[in-house]
């Protein structure tokens, strides 16, 4: 394993690329402080009001008792804050929708990761005409809008007798998660020196062993990126559940939010409590792993 330190080096470099967002902030002269800083600062505060106020409104209103909806000033903190709206939401099937969403997300992301890892490993290590063509085919998927395939997917899912089940959501979610995951994983796994896996092969290791012992640990940042990006995609997806399910018992969160609106009609505080609750896992992710989350969001797109 003489070349190991070098590998470590390559991986570190790749890592620092990946986590450019987490890197110490370079000191750019254009950001020098002084009197003229007042102009960007004013711009920054203005944008803050626009971008943050809707979230504040969501939070305030979710804490406002329904009977104060018309008497309180709508922009203010509630005069009698309460959690009863959250209770209303939780009593109206929220746990079912939450559990459905967790199930769909966990199964989809797990499957995306497994099949993409296998494919990305093969594409990186068995370079030839076949893998080049397959890789291009996967990359083409980045350009296919999933909206354009929803009608046939509905027909396929119906033929498979999966309509109105959680698996109806899982299968296409996996398909549309694969292209970007493979792109991210391939660009990362390619940086692992070929000699390493060649020498392990000569030592009699199977590809599965190499994947598990060498590739998996070395490509952790890419794997985390894929998990975060795909989790958010599947968690927030709306068109698949809208078209492929109809029963309350298999409703996922984005769909249930739209249903809550029909159910609660003018109970705005309850609707906004549901909105806030639906995002809790991702909010927690942001609080505890902001850099990973932001890095994962720009996944294959960042410079």
């Amino acid at each position, binding site marked *: 394993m003489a070349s190991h330190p070098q590998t470590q080096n390559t991986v570190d470099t790749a890592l620092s690329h990946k986590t450019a967002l987490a890197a110490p902030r370079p000191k750019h002269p254009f*950001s020098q402080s002084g009197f003229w800083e007042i102009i960007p600062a004013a711009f920054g505060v203005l944008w803050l009001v626009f971008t943050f106020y809707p979230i504040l409104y969501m939070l305030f209103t979710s804490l406002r008792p329904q009977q104060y909806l018309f008497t309180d000033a709508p922009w203010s903190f509630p005069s009698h804050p309460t959690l009863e709206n959250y209770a209303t939401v939780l009593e109206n099937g929220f746990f079912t929708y939450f559990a459905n969403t967790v199930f769909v997300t966990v199964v989809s992301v797990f499957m995306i990761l497994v099949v993409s890892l296998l494919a990305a490993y093969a594409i990186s290590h068995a370079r030839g005409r076949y893998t080049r063509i397959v890789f291009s085919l996967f990359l083409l998927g980045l350009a296919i*809008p999933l909206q354009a395939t929803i009608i046939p997917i509905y027909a*396929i899912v119906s033929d498979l007798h999966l309509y109105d089940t959680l698996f109806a959501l899982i299968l296409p979610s996996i398909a549309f998660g694969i*292209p970007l995951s493979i792109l991210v994983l391939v660009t990362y796994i390619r940086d692992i020196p070929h000699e390493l896996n060649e020498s392990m092969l000569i030592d009699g290791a199977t590809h599965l062993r190499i994947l598990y012992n060498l590739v998996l640990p070395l490509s952790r940042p890419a794997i985390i990126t894929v998990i975060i990006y795909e989790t958010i995609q599947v*968690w927030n997806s709306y068109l698949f559940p809208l078209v492929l399910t109809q029963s309350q018992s298999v409703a996922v969160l984005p769909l249930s939010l739209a249903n809550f609106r029909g159910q609660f009609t003018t109970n705005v505080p309850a609707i906004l409590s549901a909105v806030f609750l639906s995002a809790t896992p991702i909010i927690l992710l942001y609080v505890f792993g902001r850099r990973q989350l932001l890095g994962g969001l720009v996944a294959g797109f960042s410079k």
Partner: protein
Amino acid sequence: MSAIVKMPKTARRSTSFAVLWTLPALIFYVAFAIIPLFIALFYSFTSWNGLAPAVWIGLGNWRALFSDHVTLTSLLLTIQVMVISWIVQTPISILLGVFMAGKQLYRSVLGVLYFLPLLFSAVAIALTWQNMLDPNFGVVNPLLTAVGLSGLTRAWLGDPQLAFYVVLVIVCWQFIPFHSLLYLGGARQIPKELYEAATIDGGGRIQNFFAITLPQLKYTIITSTTLIFTGSLTYFDLFWVTTQGGPGYATRVLPLQMYITAFQNEQVGYGSMIAVVLAAFGIVLSFILLRFSGFSKMSSQLEGL
């Protein structure tokens, strides 16, 4: 056949290994992404209500498209979404990204708050804004009244002249954080030596921005532009939940028109034709933009991922 025989044993083994290991991903991907694309193409030549057997009508749907005012209008709306989104989002995102890349502490604190919209689904965002803008129990009209601008109060999403632009404001609110995140990453990677040299040469902040920052962000601009253009084709959730395409046809963008045609009006064949237009539009656009940025440059960009 002979080519395979001539291949060395290891190469053959490595091909069968590659086939085997790419198979699971290929099965899912081909079955639920590639095949549906071709089925949509097939449906687009049929007249089908989803129940009775589909009837082959050749180019019937495609000919009908040219006299279908509603669908052509929705296509035009989608192009407007692309153009307006780009014009509004790009400069603001660049400014915000460069702003957050600054070393001042308050800028990174603001950055933490700027990214909050990224945490919510399009449905969550749509519901929040819809309630804020509601003329009866919303907050926007009372705020305007409170600051003495009661003349500006509107039925924001109910006015056919206005609704489209109001939804576009929500689109910007949702997506500018993402694009500013891209530009933040790009701006952080600009070598600071460039600025040092320019400052010695007497470059001011604004000069440096145009002479160094903007050219250095070229590839980020291309990436962000690609994502805005292709993304604009697919806005469904936000438009559907805020307005359902209304009032009238004022916000019925192409994906909505497809959904309404196929699933509400049960014209599956015609809806598929719209889906094919959507897919072709997306794929052609991606390729043009990829061409424009240059394959080699794009792949060198990916090296640095």
